[in-house]
């Protein structure tokens, strides 16, 4: 296929690629929470899967190559919630500082890291 000028990076159909490797993997608790957050936010009507995809696409290929699936998702969910007016950027900053003040080991039990 001759590539089309203006094709966006995420629109990958038809590009040369290697074989698909079917892999099974478990999800971390935080990843399940990100997924649940998306379900809650969309079921409450704050935004749709279209908005989720739009932000993921606008993040560009570098984010796709350097970040995991749910790392990208949580950024997209956050941006859509800010755009929907669910919370302000300032409120987000205050909450992030509050969570950071709990210390680096606060989430270890939830992750089951030391069991």
């Amino acid at each position, binding site marked *: *296929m001759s590539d089309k000028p203006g094709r*966006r990076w995420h629109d990958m159909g038809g590009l040369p690629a290697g074989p698909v490797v079917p892999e099974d993997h478990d999800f971390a608790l935080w990843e399940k929470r990100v997924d649940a957050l998306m379900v809650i936010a969309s079921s409450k009507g704050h*935004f749709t899967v*279209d*908005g989720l995809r739009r932000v993921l*696409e606008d993040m560009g290929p570098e984010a796709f190559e350097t970040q995991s699936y749910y790392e990208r998702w949580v950024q997209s969910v956050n941006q859509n919630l800010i*755009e929907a007016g669910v919370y302000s950027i300032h409120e987000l900053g205050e909450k992030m500082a509050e969570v950071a003040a709990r210390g680096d080991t606060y989430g270890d039990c939830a992750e089951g890291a030391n069991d």
Partner: protein
Amino acid sequence: MTEFVRVSELMPPGHVRTPAYLRGKMGLIERPLGRFGNPEQLAYGLAADKQKLYRVRFSMAEIWGDGAENPDDTLDAEIFAHWLTPLETPDAS
């Protein structure tokens, strides 16, 4: 009802659901699927018009040309009406 359609070749930069590899290609309406909110509006938090959505069938030969491994195999894609132009006959344009 005209059954042959050609997919628009437009390449706007925003969120669209029509894959680039099908743009400009000719297909056959396989079935109408009903009306759904336009994702090009929903993606930006806008009130969405209900647009007709169709399942369109393409031949591998039409999509990939001489590069098609199995030219007679087909691929179905769901495409909104505003991306489709009805054709009187195949290869009309």
